[in-house]
Each structure stands twice: as structure tokens, then as C-alpha cells.
């Protein structure tokens, strides 16, 4: 996914933001794939490409047997009942003028042929699934707590029984105890109705708890991908190791590996050749300027690094 920047000087070649570059990922049915990385690594851009909220510059998004990127607008709209999203800010993503019931009913009215009565029944069922009592169905967003609002967002996302739910930082605006409840709710829904998630987060602790597999992104590329336990116990890419070493562990005796990256993330306008981390990586070698091979280091565990 490239975003051209408009230049205000005539005759100068337009510059391009390389938000995503040649990312290949898959999510299996009933699986939760965690997508982690810091601000600007492209994880939210990838989510928006998957849902075609933005159109990728090149590449394809295949969903079951369909190439989503080849669908017309009308076909894509029909397909959206299978692809839903929960956003980070639970308040901004709700319409303040719609009650809880009306919010959850909206996708049912848009995407299903259910009668008014059947829709009402489904709304009650879904609210029950996310742990919101029937007493809240006529409330408005401003009458709810942050945790309750995020439950409404989740209820709206799962109302049409989608095949895939994209969760973009669904817990980062929530307080610790609410965060724990929303994570448990997501896991419960996964177990009970076999939900498939693409879970985007910079919170690696939550990712470890909820995800089956994890992909780590840096500056628009996937640098490492592995089953969750494998990734956290045997991180192979220097970036993953650095990221893990940055997370404060709630144990005063923990001795985390300190692999420190220098400087800040370079601009996605001028991405380095070869490995994009090489300017900040303490292990960098001359070979890192060459195109990076992707190696399989363990079953299901791939790393894009010359030194792995």
C-alpha cells in the first residue's frame, strides 16, 4: 500500500509513503492471528486493506474463495456481513444518537433479510453473548461506561455472524480491569462460536494471551511470524527481541534481555534498502543492505533476517 504525497514544488517527482510493502499473511478459520508492531508499522493500514476501507496499490486479498480486491462495490457491500471490525476508540466508533439496541440492529437491517421481530430477538441474543443485560438495550452511548461501550461495538461486529472480525487495538483505551474482561469476552466468543480474529495490537501481553499465531511488523513489512508460544519463548528477529525487551514485566526480579534499538523509526518515505531495521539494529552487518531472505527456523516460524 503506497500513499503518494503531493509535492508543492512543480516538476519534482512526487514522494511516496511506503505504508505496506509486499506483505503476505493468512488467517485460518477459527484462528486468531495477532498483528503487532509500533505506530506507523502499517498494521492498521493492513486491516483497512483487508476490509477494503482503502484500496491497496498492488496485491490481492483473498477471503475464502473470493478475491475481495476484484469485487465491485455492490458485491463488496454484500460481502461485508462476513467481515466486521472493532475499532480502538469505543466512544468515537458509536453513533451518539443511536441506542444500544439500534446500534446492534443496524448491520442486521443492512445485511440480512431478518424480519423486525427476528432482528429484535437476535439483538437480545447478541447483547446477552457480550454480557450486556437487557436492561441496557435502550440506553445511549453517553449513559454507558467505556467497557460497556466496547461491548456494544463487539456486539455490533458479531451480530451478522461474520466469518472474520478485525480488532484494531480494541482494549488500549480501556482501564486494566475492563481490559481483562474484554479480552476474556473475546476469548469466550472464539471458543463458543468459533470466531476468527485478526487482532491488531501493540500490547504484546494481550496478544500472548489471546492469539494462536503472531506476525510482527516493522516499517511496512512482516519481519517474523510464528505460533504465539514459539514467538514469545524463542523470538528470532532482532526487532521482535528488542520489542519484547522493552515491555516492563510485573516482577521486580525479572531480568529481561536488553537488546536496545537506537534512534527512532525512519520515515516511510525514505525506507532503507535491504533490511529496514539495519540503521537501528545493534547486530547489523554489511550483508543487511542486501535483499532480506525469509527463513523457516522452526515449524510455522519464519524470520526475515540475514542473521537468523
Amino acid at each position: 500500500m503506497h500513499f503518494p504525497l503531493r509535492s508543492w514544488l512543480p516538476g519534482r517527482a512526487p514522494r511516496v509513503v511506503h505504508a505496506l510493502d509486499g506483505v503476505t499473511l493468512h488467517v485460518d478459520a477459527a484462528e486468531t492471528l495477532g498483528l503487532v508492531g509500533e505506530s506507523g508499522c502499517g498494521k492498521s493500514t493492513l486491516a483497512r486493506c483487508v476490509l477494503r476501507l482503502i484500496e491497496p496499490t498492488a496485491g490481492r486479498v483473498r477471503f475464502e474463495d473470493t478475491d475481495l480486491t476484484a469485487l465491485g462495490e455492490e458485491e463488496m457491500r454484500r460481502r461485508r456481513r462476513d467481515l466486521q471490525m472493532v475499532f480502538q476508540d469505543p466512544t468515537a466508533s458509536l453513533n451518539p444518537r443511536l441506542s444500544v439496541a439500534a446500534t446492534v440492529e443496524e448491520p442486521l437491517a443492512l445485511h440480512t433479510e431478518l424480519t423486525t421481530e427476528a432482528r429484535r430477538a437476535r439483538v437480545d441474543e447478541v447483547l446477552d453473548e457480550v454480557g450486556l443485560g437487557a436492561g441496557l438495550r435502550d440506553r445511549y452511548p453517553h449513559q454507558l461506561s467505556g467497557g460497556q461501550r466496547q461491548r456494544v461495538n463487539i456486539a455490533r461486529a458479531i451480530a451478522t455472524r461474520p466469518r472474520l472480525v478485525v480488532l484494531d487495538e480494541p482494549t488500549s483505551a480501556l482501564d486494566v480491569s475492563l481490559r481483562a474482561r474484554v479480552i476474556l469476552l473475546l476469548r469466550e466468543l472464539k471458543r463458543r462460536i468459533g470466531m476468527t480474529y485478526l487482532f491488531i495490537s501493540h500490547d504484546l501481553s494481550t496478544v500472548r494471551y489471546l492469539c494462536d499465531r503472531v506476525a510482527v511488523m516493522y516499517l511496512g513489512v512482516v519481519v517474523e511470524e510464528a505460533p504465539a508460544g514459539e514467538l514469545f519463548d524463542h523470538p528470532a528477529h532482532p526487532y521482535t527481541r528488542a520489542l519484547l525487551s522493552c515491555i516492563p514485566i510485573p516482577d521486580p526480579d525479572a531480568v529481561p534481555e536488553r537488546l536496545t534499538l537506537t534512534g527512532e523509526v525512519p520515515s516511510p518515505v525514505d525506507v532503507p534498502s535491504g533490511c529496514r531495521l539495519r540503521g537501528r539494529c545493534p547486530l547489523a552487518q554489511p550483508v543487511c543492505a542486501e535483499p532480506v531472505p525469509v527463513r523457516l527456523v522452526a515449524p510455522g516460524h519464519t524470520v526475515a533476517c540475514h542473521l537468523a
Partner: protein
Amino acid sequence: MTPLLAVEDLTIHFDTEDGVVHAVDGAALAIGPGEVVGLVGESGSGKSVTALAILRLLRPPARVTSGRIRFDGRDLLALSEEEMRAVRGARISMVFQSPRTSLNPVLPVGRQIERLLVRHRGARPAEARAQAVAMLREAGLAEPERRARQYAHQLSGGMCQRVMVAMALATNPRLLIADEPTTGLDVSIAAQILDLLRDLGRRTGAAILLITHDLGVVARLCDRVVVMHAGQTVEWAPVRGLFHAPAHPYTRALIRSIPRVDRAVAMEPIAGVVPSLLAPPPGCRFASRCDLVRTQCAAGAPVRTVEAEHRVACVAVAGV
């Protein structure tokens, strides 16, 4: 050891249309010179309000209804507004959560530090300029001369927080209050800011009161910890004691409610909700969420010592 700062029996009310919000109820905490003390709890536990009360920055409808705040041998609540202004910035300074909005958007960042040096340390403009650059360098900003001439919007969030830390320590304060200084920053930048706070705190000898909801940050940085719940301070402990032998049922529940990155553990949300502070229950405010609740809880929670420097306000915990 005489504490640098001692807050005792601090009670803060908010007068609202719906009634009086009992935001802080008899909070107590102490910080020794050069110590790093964590103040932890969920949103609404009264952490930030307590910090603002220490700096006397609370404005109506908030008011301190009782309590003592002793700093460096003086009762801050008894100082005149003018005396307090001399304490703020020079003796106690603060780093806020959102660095970009805490900086003045229409003044270059270097100039903001210069002003502080001129006002609180009587520096001459030329030497203030040189010192400001030196401080930005010490705060780990690359190209400090260039950065000093830039505005907040030209810097990244991490750089803005470095400027805030440089500014907070510019006057060589004895106490730095950092309110969620890394919330909203990327993990690698957050780790750098935490290291910076610790290193600069050590070098300048400033004590740090670190307000956070992140127990990982507490474990990494703090010597001692104070836990707050719904406006009450419920446990005071050295950092090891807090994590290895948490005494208050709330502290234990808080530790159980966080997912861990270093190992796969079960996670359990804290039961119930924080009680309404408009009409808080009498006695211990955790009682309605607590599995050890008994009738005496409504009468208040006596403070008990469980180990040296480790105290807890709970009737269900045996003291020594």
C-alpha cells in the same frame, strides 16, 4: 529517615450538581529523598487528584477538606499562593501524560526551558539559553541546538516527553511527580523514557512519585509502591514485597488481572465495579468487590504492619 514528602489523612471532595464526590478519602503516603515511589490503581482511584493536591493545583469544584501535606519541613497547605509558586517548578515539578499538549504550542521548546531558568533560578538570558540546550542534550535529544529552536508540533511524542523531562528537572527539584509519563507512547519509546527518568533522577538526586496503572512500569522503576482504590490508600510496600507477597485483596486482584508477556498465566478480572464516589459505602470501599468481606469492613480498615515497611489497610489481613 525524615520523609521529603508526607501526605497524611488527605481528603478531597468535588462539589457537583449531583452531590459531593468523595474523590479521595484519608489518603496517606510518604517519599524519602531520592526515592522512587509508585502510586498505582485503576482510573478514578484518586491518583492524579492526589498529585494535583500536592502541587496545590486543584481548582473548584475540587477542594481539600482535610489532611496535611508536609514537604521539606513545611506544610504546603498552609503556604500563601506566592510561596507555593516558588515551590512549584523549582522544588516540585511535574511531568504529565500527554507531552504534546503540556508544552506551549507557540513557543520554541528551548525557550520554554529558558523561561523556567530565568524565573526560578535567576539565570541571565544568555546562560539560560546555553543551559537549556545542555538539558535537552542530557535528556537524550539528538541535535539539541536545532531541537531547542523547534516547536512542539515539529517533534515526535517521544521527543516531546524528553523535553518535558528536561524541563521538569531543569530547576533541580527535590521531587518530580510523573503522571502516567509513558501512556500513549510506543513501547520502545516508553522504555527509553523510563530509563531516562530513572537515570536523571539518580543523577540529580530528585525523588520521583510515579503515577501509573501499569504494574510492569512499577516493577521496573520503583523502590516502593502505594496502592489506591476508589480514593483510599490500601497498601504501602517495598516493590519486592508488593509483587511477592501482596497483602490487600485489591492488590492481589490487580496483579491477577493483568496478562503477562513473559509467561502464559491465567488472568482473572477484578470482580464488581468501583463503587460510586457520590455515595461511597462506609469503611473499606473495596468491600463490595472483595471475597474476604466481613461485617467489620463497614467500620473502616485499620492499618496493619505485615512486614518491615509493608503496611496494609484491611481487617481480613493479619498483622504482626
